[in-house]
Structures are given as C-alpha cells and as structure tokens.
C-alpha cells in the first residue's frame, strides 16, 4: 500500500505546485511499473505546460510591444457584468494608472472629451441596439489636460438569442496623423486661395492683353488706311504734275503702310493663337497640306513647283491652328524656293519621338545658315532681306507657339543654298 500512497501524495503535491505556476518540478521515477509510467507522463505534462506558458508569455510580450509601437490597444467590455478590460497600451494612451481606473463603461466615458461624449455614447448604442458599424474618431482628455485623438473600431458579440453580451474593439492614437491631415487641409485651402488669387491676376492680365490687341486691331490700322488712301488719291488727282520721282516716293509710302498693315495682322494672329481656346480632335494633316498647297500654287508664276504630300497623316489637335502651322511652313517653302526654277516641296513623316510622330516640311529653296538658328523662331527676326523675300518675321514664331500649345516641339535644319527642313511633333 505504501508503494501506492506515497507516489499519489507526491502527485497531488506536484499538481498543486504546477497550478501555482511552478513548472520546474519533476517526480523521481523509481519504478518501472504503472506508477513509473504515470510519473513519466506527469513530468512530460509538466514540461509541456512549462513550454506552452513560456510561449504564451512571449506571445503576450510581443503583442504588448506591437501595441506600444503601433499605438493600438485592445479592449473587451463584458456587458453583462459591465466590466471593461483594457490592454496596457490603452492605459498608457489614456494616461491613467491601472489602479485608478474604475474599469467600467462609465469610467471610459469619463476619459472622453466632454464635447464628444454624446457622440461616442450614441455610436456605442447604435452598434449594440441596431448592429451598426462601430468605427469612430473622437478626442480624449488625459489627466494632464492634454487632448489626444483616437480611432476606435469594435464588434458586438451576441448570445444565441441575439442579446449583446460583449463588445471587443481596438483603440488607436491618431493624433499625429490627424494633425498632419489638418495641416494638409489647411495648406490645401491656402493653396486654393493662392491659385484663385493668381488666376484672378492672370485673368486681369489676359483681359488687358485682349483689350490691347482689340485696340491694335481697330485703331492702329485706321491711320494706315489714311496714309495709303490719300497717297493713292494724290497720285490719281495730281499724278501728272509730280513727275516720276514723286510717283516713286508715293509708291514707297503706300508700300510702307501696306507692310505695316501686314505686320499688324501677323501680330494679331500671333496673339490670337496664344489666347484662343483650343479644340482637340482628329485632324487629317495630309488633307490640310493639300489644301494649303493648292492655295499656294495659285500665286506661283513662271516656275515649276512639285509638291509631294504623304497620304493619311493624321494627328489630334486644333484644326484651325494646325492650318495656320501648315500655311506658314508650306507657305515658307513656296516663298523660299521662289528663285528655284524647279522647286520641290515635301510633307511627310520621318519616324517617331517617343509616342509622337515627327512631321517634316522640306524644300530645296534658299535654305539658311545654321549659325543664325537661334533667331529662327524669334518674332520679327528675319534671316533674309525683305527685298529678296517679303515677310514680317512672325510666321515661325506663330508656328512655334501653336506647336507648344499642342505639347509638341518644332525645330529646323538648313544649309545656305541647299534648302531647309522643318520638323514638328504634336
């Protein structure tokens, strides 16, 4: 009997120690009978419990760390007993020592900012009685008086009859994020205000420019009409008495006023293409180029011009503005091949630049010296004298502005006496 009673006493004493949390126990295994087997099993159980409780402690520690780092705490509210269980992180977040917290729902409400209390309470009631989603931001007041902002998310647990018995949730301190968001909102409002202010300024400037060009269009031309008209009248009425020199002077006066008329028109076009509201639709460039070439050919006398225009060149853009581009580039090609007995002008594509097609207008005309390339697209800059080739020097500047407005670029290549090529993308 003693063989059985003594080991049993041992077992119960050890079990009590294990229950008390002392897992470093083992029962000496002295026999190989059933008692011995049981002792072995008992010891193995003790080691198992020790391992698992160590793992549990480690896991708890890791959870605590994670909560501390993420500023997230979790809570369980036993609604039947009105007991609130907070994780350590919530105590830290709320600045309340564990011992001073009543651990009830009311104690929790006490920590909430007075202005947010009703809101939080009704959100909890909504989740409990209506089953609505509980995900809210609210303020809390720390014992130090500091106000923090937290985000809460929770679920209600119900028994088989649907009665809520428990609510579990998380609390996250989002004060820094909220402050950053508020700062972003504030900056956005400021930015919007500034944009509005600048837009108003810009609109004012555009208005000024518009009224300026309106006045140019109306007022600058009318004195030119007087100069030209009365010079003509003078020639008609008194032509016989002024001699050839007088005629020559008057011819120069008329030519000057007409040239100035063209300048004003070209300037207006330049300002027009800059401020015009742009359309974007599919434009058949080949078709446009054909139309321009037909127009240009009407002005050609005493020489041959071969126009080779590739078919099916299409682009997205403003048809009116692209017409102005081709009017200028193809018009220039006609103009600068003026001294060529057999002129050749081509319009085609020469590959791509990224996703954009490169278009090219090429001629075998007088060309230009690349040394002066920098002046090519500058308004009023000309690389040829007006005696050789008429013009105002605004055409390529206009082309460049239109191309820019389409998001593309334009460039040229030339050699004196060997023709020119202008490339553009859209």
């Amino acid at each position, binding site marked *: 009997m003693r063989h059985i009673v003594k080991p049993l006493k041992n077992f119960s004493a050890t079990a009590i120690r294990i229950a008390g949390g002392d897992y470093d126990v083992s029962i000496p295994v002295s026999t190989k009978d059933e008692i011995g087997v049981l002792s072995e099993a008992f010891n193995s159980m003790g080691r198992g419990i020790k391992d698992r409780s160590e793992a549990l402690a480690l896991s708890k520690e890791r959870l605590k760390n994670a909560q501390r780092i993420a500023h997230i705490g979790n809570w369980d509210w036993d609604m039947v007993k009105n007991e609130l269980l907070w994780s350590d992180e919530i105590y830290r977040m709320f600045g309340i020592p564990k011992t001073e917290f009543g651990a009830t729902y009311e104690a929790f409400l006490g920590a909430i900012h007075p202005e947010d209390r009703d809101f939080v309470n009704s959100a909890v009631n909504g989740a409990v009685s209506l089953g609505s989603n509980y995900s809210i931001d609210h303020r809390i007041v720390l014992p130090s008086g500091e106000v923090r902002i937290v985000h809460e998310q929770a679920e209600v647990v119900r028994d088989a009859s649907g009665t809520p018995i428990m609510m579990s949730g998380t609390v996250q301190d989002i004060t820094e994020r909220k402050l950053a968001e508020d700062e972003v909102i504030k900056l956005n409002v400021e930015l919007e205000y500034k944009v509005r202010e600048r837009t108003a300024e810009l609109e004012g400037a555009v208005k000024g420019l518009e009224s300026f060009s309106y006045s140019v269009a109306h007022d600058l031309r009318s004195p*030119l*009409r007087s100069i030209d008209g*009365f010079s003509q009248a003078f020639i008609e009425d008194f032509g016989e008495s002024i001699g050839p020199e007088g005629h020559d002077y008057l011819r120069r006066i008329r030519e000057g006023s007409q040239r100035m008329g063209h300048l004003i028109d070209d300037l207006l076009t330049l300002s027009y293409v800059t401020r015009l509201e742009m359309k974007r639709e599919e434009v058949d460039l080949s078709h446009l180029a054909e139309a321009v070439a037909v127009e240009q050919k009407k002005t050609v006398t005493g020489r041959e011009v071969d126009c080779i225009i590739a078919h099916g060149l299409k682009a997205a853009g403003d048809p009116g503005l692209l017409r102005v581009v081709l009017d200028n580039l193809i018009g220039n090609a006609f103009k600068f091949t003026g001294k060529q007995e057999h002129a050749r002008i081509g319009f085609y594509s020469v590959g791509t630049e990224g996703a954009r097609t490169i278009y090219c207008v090429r001629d075998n005309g007088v060309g230009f010296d690349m040394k002066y390339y920098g002046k090519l697209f500058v308004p009023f800059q000309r690389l040829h004298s007006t005696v050789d080739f008429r013009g105002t020097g605004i055409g390529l500047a206009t082309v460049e502005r239109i191309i820019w407005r389409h998001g593309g670029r334009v460039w040229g290549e030339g050699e004196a006496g060997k023709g020119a090529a202008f490339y553009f993308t859209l």
Partner: protein
Amino acid sequence: MDEKIILLVEDNPDDVALTERAFKKNNIRNRVIVAADGVEALDYLFCSGKYAGQTTTLPQVILLDLKLPRVSGLEVLKMIRTDERTKLLPVVILTSSKEEQDLIDGYKLGANSYIRKPVDFSQFLEAVKQLGLYWLVLNETPKKW
C-alpha cells in the same frame, strides 16, 4: 420715297472722305448721310436729337463702323434690331478689325454682312464697288419696311 439713301456711321473723317471717294470712283451717286457716332445714327433713324421733328428717309443700307464714340456700333445694331420700324433694315458692318469676337457678336445681333476695311486703298475701292453693286443695285427691298 424711292430715293436710295446710304447711312454711313463713321467717326473718322479720313475714313468718311475715303469712303465717299470710293463711292464716287465707283459711280455710286446715292445720297450719303454721315453719322459721326452711334447717337447721331440713332437720332437719324428715329427722328430724335438733331433730327427731332423731321421725317427722315430710311436708308437702303446702313454702313456701320463698330468702334464709335458714345454709343458703339454693336449697341446701335442692337437698337436697330429691337425697334419695329428698323428691325429689317440691311446693316453692313464696315470696320477695321476682323476680330473673331466682333464677327460673332455682329452676326449674332443680326448684321447682314461684315466687311473689313483693307489698308490697301485699291482693295478698299474694290470692296466698296462690290458692296454698292450688291446692296444698292442687286438687292431688292420692299417699298415699305
């Protein structure tokens, strides 16, 4: 009542002289009433102001400049088109600019034609010739508007 009058609304005396010269050169011998601004034009049409108490003959065509002192050309056009007596009168805008907005506004308010005065007087002569031929000779209007 058969007299075909031209009402020329133009504030610039040079332009008035050149337009009259262009009429003469093109053998257009109709009487030309010159209104130096919008107010004068409306006074003539509605027998007010300096034309008060007179019975003026409605013109066969109105040549209307846009940029005028006091009442602008577009305002004149608007008032012509809103008055029962004048709303059908042919109005040709004859002005310096071909600003897109002027063209649109002009046609919107009911202009019958829009002609830009060219700087080159030879071209201006040609324009006036066409204008006179069309509005004074070819174009038929009812005896009474």
